[in-house]
């Protein structure tokens, strides 16, 4: 008797007319092959869909962050811009940010806001002329070089250009060490 209380079913009759071993082997193989095919038909598109971010190459576009006159020479300010190709339902998550410094009348430098330690948002403190990370205490000098703490690399920089009086930043992936 099995655990459900049902009497054990009778064993298959191995001498039944359909019990040709060759036929059984064939039926086993065809069943396994068809099952594999069905699993592949279901699985391949699912896996492909899930890993599509790895294959898809996101475009990089120039985003305006303000007119040149808006920024004072020597000042570092937080600017925000939209990602390269936001999905319609992304909402505020489509925003990105950078620390932008006007070095001279025509030169700008844009730093990533992501600490190179583990990606937390670094903050600029103008009086101390330092970028500080709130998570694990990473410190960067004004030029983005590591001043103290655990960050393994300097702060990455975004490409910046001035076009038609507008400062533009080239959208970039979140820097992953």
């Amino acid at each position: 008797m099995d655990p459900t209380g049902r009497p054990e079913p009778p064993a298959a009759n191995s001498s039944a007319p359909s019990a040709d071993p060759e036929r059984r082997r064939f039926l086993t193989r065809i069943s396994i092959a068809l099952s594999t095919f069905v699993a592949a038909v279901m699985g391949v598109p699912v896996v492909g869909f899930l890993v599509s971010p790895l294959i898809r190459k996101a475009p990089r576009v120039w985003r305006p962050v303000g007119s040149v006159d808006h920024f004072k020479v020597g000042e570092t300010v937080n600017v925000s811009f939209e990602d390269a190709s936001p999905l319609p339902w992304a909402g505020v998550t489509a925003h990105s940010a950078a620390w932008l410094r006007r070095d001279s009348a025509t030169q700008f430098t844009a730093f990533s806001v992501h600490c190179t330690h583990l990606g937390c948002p670094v903050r600029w403190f103008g009086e101390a002329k330092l970028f500080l990370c709130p998570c694990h205490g990473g410190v960067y000098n004004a030029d983005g070089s590591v001043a103290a703490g655990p960050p393994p690399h300097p702060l990455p920089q975004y490409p910046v250009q001035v076009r038609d009086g507008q400062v533009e930043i080239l959208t970039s992936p979140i820097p992953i060490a």
Partner: protein
Amino acid sequence: MIKRFFAWLDDRSGLLTSARHALEHPVPPRTGWWYVFGSATLLAFVLQVVTGIALATAYVPSSGQAYDSLRFISEQALMGRFLRGMHYFGASAMVLLIGIHVSRTYLMAAYKFPRELNWLSGAVLLLLTLALAFTGQLLRWDQNAVWSVIVGAAQAGRMPIVGHDMARFILAGDTIGGATLSRFFAFHVFFIPALVFVLIGLHLALVLRHGISERPKVGEPVDPATYRAKYDALLRREGVPFWPDAAWRDVVFGACMVATVVLLAITVGPPELGRPPDPSILQADPRPDWYLLWYFAVLALAPVHLENVIIVLGPLLFGAILILLPIFNKGERSVRRRPWAGLLVVFIWTTIVSFWYAAQKADWSPDFAAKPLPASVVKSGDPTVVEGARLFHEKGCEFCHAIEGFGGERGPDLSQVASRMSPVQIEARITNGSPNMPAYAQSLKPEEVRTIAAFLATRR
């Protein structure tokens, strides 16, 4: 009539007989309260499924709308705040209970023959529970959640060769965006729970197949050649039906656990939502929920040169130990004959609690909210000293250094710095920095350095 209906149902489905078989299977006597944590973990999971389904009826898994739907659930929906609280404390209970259950199983060596697969299925359930806890925190989809995703991706990025792809897989692209949350939602409510259901089924089937392990006794080692016969003899001699002789403790403990979750959901409530999930708002201070906070501290306190080893090899080593442990499936089960096992469990829990406590203080983080030093601390009318105290705050020294309780704790307390360093040494330190302190030569003028040093020279 009812009796006949159930007889028909049982004949066609076998469900009642199967349930009776499971409930009345014999278990060793005197198992006691140590054996309640597995069933309590299962009950916590059921609680998560029930409250999770209810929350999912109003939660919108869209990057742009999830935050607002959570505000609706928390502030307007009937019992919404309570349900969120239940779900949060239910998750906390599940993590805590599975941790205790694994520790108990290891301490009593219940992973030994013939229960190796019980252990392995339980080990995977432990990892899946942690995955559920992490993905659940992210579904809160406020500023903290968004930055936690980025921190998770950054950690994955440290993995050699596949790290970059893993990070992009987690982010669902190059940046946080519309696809990120949907992915975590699918994993949290479909994929991981489906695996958990399958593994719980396997785990319970194995418990029924091999029986609940008996309390270990000193001098009764596990010998695969004789264990089953001994165990069967024990059950024949002293075995009691699981229901109700052993199960009543599971019911009592489970009810207390649920009551505690309800009480906490009412009195403490769910975690408050932070700022909106806008990655361009940089006034953020991301922290994981309490059950992963200890790891946050590990990453802050680990020596920099060991960090990659910890991030990459730590989880691999942990997984390998869990999987390989049942290789040692013979011998003594009693912790009295395995004192190192007891010490290991104490060491692991002490380490986790210690790092957790350190993370509560997080004194490695600069104190951005440090207030200017009051006159009662400056204690001087000398204009240079007063100006030095002002600069000490303004130039950010106070973020990392405390004076008489004001300021951060990342660097040394400078309340009595003048008793160990001369003004010249102080100036040199400010100018040149030290291995864990920036050099201020570029950012401070020489007279500012001198003024700050003059103030610090009064700190004795």
